[in-house]
């Protein structure tokens, strides 16, 4: 077991040493892989940020409930408590008539005119925010219908049209990312496979000799698998760097746009989980690509 590990470790380091002997061509291969991996990674970062930026929209996903005028405040509070007990409701905010008027005075600019009224024309209102897990349009409609049946409820407002549109757009984008990722992963497999194929051709004599002295297919293949692993891992590191560069280049302009809209939104780079996933994916693709290529091409080389 220890001997087995030692041998693998030696091959692992040995293949790295071999790659470092041809720094330039190794770097070029890794760069091509890096660019291929950077494209879906950048898209992913973009979408993650977009989701974060539109997080505020989710808050806009509210059901506005207006109670009948002259409903006592205690009853409004009871109603709010009752609704908030539902599993699919994250939060219920009670806006009393007095508070609503105050806010309206502040925001509308009709302050003076409103002050002239001797009676508050506004009813109590409830802002029902559904739980994030229950935002499908069907579910929201069902929730709204249930609220509508409650006593003292006058009007229930739910605009689901834009939610549907947003969901559809996000769905389309994420599917496009999946397709792009699959295609680019295939590209990485081809790049690694081809590089390994050339590598095998260049080392034909060595492979023949190794087979002559009793090296099995697995033994001969091992260094090529590790080369593939290094190519993939190196490519993933470059992809990470490219993504980080892209994000840092976009950070200032995006920040300016955000500040113009009065937001403190800041572009986030790759988090630890995504970075790990990127590196593992790169290494795995390199390994698989070299495995496919080496298994196929090493069979053809036999001593003669």
């Amino acid at each position, binding site marked *: 077991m220890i001997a087995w590990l030692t041998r693998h470790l030696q091959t692992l380091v040995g293949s790295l040493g071999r790659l470092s002997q041809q720094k330039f061509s190794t770097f070029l291969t890794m760069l091509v892989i890096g660019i291929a991996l950077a494209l879906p990674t950048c898209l992913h970062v973009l979408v993650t940020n977009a989701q974060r930026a539109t997080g505020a929209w989710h808050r806009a996903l509210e059901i506005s409930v207006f109670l009948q005028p002259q409903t006592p405040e205690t009853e409004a509070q009871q109603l709010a408590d009752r609704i908030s007990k539902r599993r699919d409701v994250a939060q219920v905010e009670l806006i009393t008539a007095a508070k609503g008027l105050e806010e309206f005075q502040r925001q509308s600019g009709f302050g003076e005119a409103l002050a002239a009224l001797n009676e508050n024309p506004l009813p109590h209102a409830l802002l029902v925010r559904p739980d994030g897990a229950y935002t499908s349009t069907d579910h929201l409609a069902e929730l709204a219908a249930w609220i509508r049946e409650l006593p003292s409820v006058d009007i229930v407002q739910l605009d689901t049209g834009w939610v549907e549109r947003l969901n559809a757009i996000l769905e389309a984008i994420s599917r496009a990312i999946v397709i792009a990722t699959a295609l680019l992963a295939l590209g990485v497999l081809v790049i690694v496979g081809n590089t390994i194929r050339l590598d095998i051709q260049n080392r034909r004599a060595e492979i*023949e*000799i190794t087979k*002559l*002295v*009793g090296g099995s297919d697995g033994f001969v293949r091992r260094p090529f698998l590790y080369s593939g692993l290094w190519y993939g891992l190196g490519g993933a590191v470059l992809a990470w760097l490219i993504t980080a560069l892209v994000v840092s280049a976009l950070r200032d302009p995006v920040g300016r746009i955000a500040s113009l809209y009065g937001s403190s939104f800041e572009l986030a780079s790759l988090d630890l989980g995504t970075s790990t996933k990127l590196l593992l994916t790169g290494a795995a693709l390199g390994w698989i690509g070299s495995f496919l290529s080496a298994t196929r091409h090493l069979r053809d080389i036999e001593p003669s």
Partner: protein
Amino acid sequence: MIRFDHVYKRYPNGREALSNVSLEVARGELVFVTGHSGAGKSSLLKLIALIERPTRGQLIVNGQNVAGVSRRKIPAFRRQIGMVFQDHKLLYDRTVFDNVALPLVIAGVRTKEIGKRVRAALDQVGLLGREQCLPLELSTGEQQRVGIARAVVSKPPLLIADEPTGNLDPDLSLEVMNLFRRFNEVGVTVLIASHDLYLLDRFPVRRIRLENGRIVDPGNAAADDAAPLLDPRKLLEREHGAPS
């Protein structure tokens, strides 16, 4: 150790390299295979090392019928055969040590043990202290000795050599042959393909003579060749057949 039973080898291009070869080499023998180039010496060795497979007939090496050795089992089969080549077949980007260690690394021997056995093998061929050289820093004769050290480092029961002295001058040839004899003395079966007349002259051992892919002299009785043939004319006769 080796038994050919009516073995034929025909290559895809139609050339028949061996026809109806039957011969037996006992464990512990030292045997020359002689004949012109193209007589089938190399084909004979290639069949033994399973580089080629017989077209017809049965071949048994070290108790194993080669017909029963599947492609996947060839590596393990070859590990019991030490092979020496005319062109050495060394890895020129690796040190002498790494070259000799290769069969042990393949066999999964522990690192510490590898060091010991590689040095022992290099000591036997007189190259101890040159472990860290690259093959091209050595002379041809020394490179051939590295090849021999690699062939014997895993202590195979059978050693086959294809024209091992082909590129060497007479003194170096003798040196290499003496190495083979020493391995033979400790029980290794040695089979050497050679058309080196000078060498054949010096070593009175059994010789199998091939001509156009047929055995013209199986050299069965070792006594037959006990005395070195000193007369060059007789030697030529032996090598090329009596003039008709």
